[in-house]
Structures are given as C-alpha cells and as structure tokens.
C-alpha cells in the first residue's frame, strides 16, 4: 500500500556551527514537526533567515537534521549515508532554485538529461524523456541552447523540466519566481500547479503572494519554528 504521507519531520533541529573554530552556533530550525501528505501543494513563507530553505533542504534529503527524525515515505532517512541520500534525491525528489542553477556547460537538453545520467538511464530513453519534458515546458525548439542563451523564464522552465526528469514524488522549489517578472512567474507557477495536478507533491518556499495563493496549504516560519499552518 502506498504511504499516504510523503515526508514527515519529527522534532527536527538544525544547528549550524560557523565562524572561526566553529564556535558560533546558529539554530536554523528549532523543533519542527511537519507532516506532508502525498499530492499536497504547500507554500512555505516567512522572513529571510527564518529557516525556510533549511526546511526545504531537509525535506529533500539534501541536508540532514542535527536532531530529530525525518521520515521519507515512512523510512527514517535522518542518519542515512550520503550515497543513500543521493539515491533518494535522484529518484524521488526534484529541486528548483531561485537562481535556476543550470549547468552552464550543458545545453537545455543536456541539463534535463543530467539527473537521468546519474540514474543510469540509457541514452535513447533519456533523450526521448528530456525532449518530452522540454516540449511540455514549451522549449522543444531551444534544446540546443546553452543557459546563457536563454532568458530567465526559459532557464527556470528548463530547471523544472530537469526536476521532473526522473518522475519524482516530491518537487521542492526555493523561491522559483524570485528572479522573474510577474508574467514569467505566472508561467512557472502554472507549470508547478500542472505537476501537482498530476499527483506530484509540491512544496514551494516563497515571498510571492500569487504563488502562496495557488497553494492549498500555507506554512509560516519564524526563527526556526512553525508559527502558522493552515492545516493545524
């Protein structure tokens, strides 16, 4: 039976040690409890430095909590080795970033292919899937272009196609419209909603009220704690 909770955080703390001799402790998350059901569209909001991105990274197995448990599809991943976490990120999670973060050396097609390369998908299958995804985000004709030859909106659409490459269960976006004008932002938002409509769980860190309005559930974070949750 499919687990109805995709990711669950139980009393998660994240403490960064910074500065010389790592003496300064910064508590990015302070005892976060969160359950994200499969298929949800979740917006995470809050002032900068509140721990939103850290929360997203931990949900996506990009980072491990200092304390507490992270259950990904029911399995505790908080103490997994890097190689196991990499595998989960590769097969189950897609990331979209504010600054697009495409590989500057690869074409649009190459960027969308990248997660499938790391997954060991055969070339023929990979190319077909990458072209299908580029067509879906409306960039089929731009597949040979390098990121430097694409506009911001186009780059972000390539990034979404890349995030969807290995058909993830969870799509995580960190301020995906933050660097885009309103109109372009809307296009990106509709792509996220479209993915959510197909059953992909989406969590978006955002300041953008339009993005927040599209989300079914809004989470407010301040000083590393959840201070508001529609669902609670």
């Amino acid at each position, binding site marked *: 039976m499919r687990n109805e909770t995709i990711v669950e955080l139980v009393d998660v703390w994240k403490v960064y040690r910074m500065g010389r001799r790592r003496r300064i402790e910064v508590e990015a998350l302070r005892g976060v409890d969160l359950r994200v059901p499969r298929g949800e569209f979740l917006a995470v909001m809050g002032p900068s430095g509140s721990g939103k991105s850290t929360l997203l990274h931990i949900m996506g197995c*990009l980072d491990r909590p200092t304390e507490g448990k992270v259950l990904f599809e029911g399995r505790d991943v908080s103490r997994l080795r*890097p*190689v196991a976490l*990499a595998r989960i990120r*590769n097969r189950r*999670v*897609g*990331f979209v970033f504010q600054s697009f973060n495409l590989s500057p*050396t690869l074409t649009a097609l190459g960027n969308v292919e990248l997660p499938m390369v790391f997954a060991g998908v055969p070339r023929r299958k990979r190319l077909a899937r990458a072209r299908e995804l580029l067509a879906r985000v409306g960039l089929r004709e731009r597949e040979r272009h390098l990121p430097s030859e694409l506009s911001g909106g186009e780059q972000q659409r390539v990034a979404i196609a890349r995030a969807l490459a290995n058909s993830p269960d969870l799509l995580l976006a960190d301020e995906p419209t933050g660097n885009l004008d309103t109109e372009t932002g809307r296009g990106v938002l509709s792509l996220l909603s479209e993915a959510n409509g197909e059953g992909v769980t989406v969590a978006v860190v955002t300041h953008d009220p339009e993005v927040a309005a599209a989300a079914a559930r809004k989470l407010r974070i301040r000083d590393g704690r959840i201070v508001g949750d529609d669902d609670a």
Partner: protein
Amino acid sequence: MMLDFLRIAVRGLLHRKKRSWLTIIGILIGITSVVALVSLGTSMQLAVRRSFEELGYDVMMILPGELGGGFGGPASLGASFEIDADALSEVEGVGEIGLMSYESLYVRAGENEGFLDTLGVSENIFSFFKVEMVAGRGFSPGERGAVVLGVEVAKELNLDVGDTLEIEDRPFAVVGIYSADSRLDEDAILIPLPDMQALLGTQGVSMVFVRAAPGYEVGKVATRLEEFLYESRGRRDLSVQTMEEVHEVVQRALGILGAFLGGIAGIALLVGGIGVMNTMYTAVLERTREIGVMKAVGARNSQIMLVFLLESGLMGLVGGAMGTGIGALLNFAAVTAAKAVLGARVLEYGISWWLVLGALGFSFLVGAFAGLLPARSAAKLDPVRALRYE
C-alpha cells in the same frame, strides 16, 4: 554510461577553452621532452646494435688493459703492445686474425699537410669491417708503400687512385678508396702494418681482431685465448673482449644516459602535472555551485569525482598525444639531420609502439593523478554550502 560522463567532462573542458589549452600545453611540453629524449636514447642504442651486428658477434678483440670495470672501458686503450700472431693462431678455435695499429702521423699531399689519424693494418682487415671500395682495391699480401683512403679524407686531400702522398716524408701510392656507413669512419688513412711499424720503429699493435673458427663458441674461444695470453706473457696485461661484452657495456652506458635524460624530461612533466592540478582546483572552486546542483539532482560523490578525474585525465591525454607526435617528429628530424651530416646509420629512428602507448598511458595517468585531490575535494563538498556558494 562512461560515455555520458566523458561527454560531460569534455563539455566542461570546452567551456573554459583557453585555460584548458594552456594546461594541455604544460603536459605537451613534458611529454614532448620525454618522448624526444627517450627516443634519442633508443636511436643511439639501435645504431650501436646495428654496427655491432655488422661487425659480427663471432669477432673478439684483444686490447690492452681491462674492459668492463666501468664507463671508460680499458684504461690504456690505444697503448701499443707486441703480440705473436702466429702463436695466437695455434689456439684452438681461432680463425682469422686481423691486426691494427694507430697513430697520428704527419701527412703531406700537395698543398695539404698536417697530422692525420693513420691506421697500420694487416691486409685482411677489410674482412672485419663493412666497407665498400669505391675506387681501386685493398692491399695485396705483402704489399708495401701502398695506402687506402676513406672517401672523406680522399676528398679533403684531393687525392685519387694512382696519386702519391707522403707520410712522415715517405711516399705512399694510393691504391684504393673506400666508403663506409658512417662518415666518421671515412676519414682514416690505411697503410700496411709493416710500413706503420717501420715508421714508428716498433713491433707493436694497438688492437687485434680475432674471428672464431666456424663451429666454435665465441665465449669459450675467448676464455682459451685469455688463458693462452696469460701463460705466454706471464701477466694479465691484455684482455679479450667478445663483441657481445663490448656491446653490453656500451648499451649499459647508453641506458644510463637515456634514463638520466628521461629523468630530466620527467621534471618537465611533473611541472605540467602541477599545472593540471592547479587548473582543476580552480575549476572546482569555480563550479562549486554546479557541483551543488549535481548533488541536488542526485549525483553520487563517486560520480562527481569521475567527472573531474575524466576532465584532468583528458587534458593529460590530449597533451600526451600531441607531445608524443611532436616528440616523434623531433626524433625524425634529429635522425634525418644526423644522417645528412654524418652519414647513414649513425642514428636509427627510435620511435616504437611501446614508447607511443607508454607515453599516452602515462600522460593520462599524470593528468588523472594530478586531478585526484581536486576531484576529491569536489566530491566531498557539502551540497547545501555548495548551492549557496557565490
């Protein structure tokens, strides 16, 4: 699978074309010097082997002093000694015997005069050396007052068969002119040994060539000869060298020279390797964010390491391929020049398959090895920090 990572690595290199090429040039210079110097060593060894093969391995030399003690060979090479050739020919297994004595003598031919290397030889000496008579003939048995010239010296002194020259104020008639493989051997003046001994007022020779009789093993004949010399002379002032022994000594010396030159070239390669390391560290720093992204989309540490190792290895390989080509061209040019200036067979082409494959493999390894630490630091980056890197 591997091909995909190779493609990513190539993309990375092409993206910073100028820097990649500069780094490749570093490796190129290193490999060029390694290949050029190692092949030069091989060229010399091949040439030496060839000349020994032409002399024949059934030939022994009797020389004053000891050979094989070190680099220098016999301490008293060139010193003159007396020997009874008839008694020598009685030793079991001894075939033909050739005698040679050499000295710098005062030679005058028309306007030209000066000290020139002169060899006094038994008339059968041409059976020991590969020379070709281009005019006239060799010595006939018992002939006196005749001279045979190398083509070089004949040209220099403007002499032809039938002309006369004076050696130490005695007239000699030119009866033959020979050419040899190497121009170095073409500037000798040959006269009958008895004439030489008369000019010098001694009965001495500088070197004796002995050919083992058919069916006899050279090594055993050499041992018997040494015993005979010791018994008849009462001391070990002469040594018998087989061509194989002499060849070995020369090869060893050339081998050491080659290793020494290769070592110097290795330093250039090391510098090239450090260049690769530097470039790769810079690349890792520059692409920190990209590495973070690769990790975010699920690249394992080992896969990231592979991408960077392939990049540095490729730089090594490209530099190595070009360096091998240039090194081979240099060898070709050096050998061709040597043949043009000094005559054939002074050097042989020294590029072999093992050298080419070895140089290619080695250059890839140097590149990959230099990339090891940078690649490791790339693989070990914390993805969250890498993503935040500006």
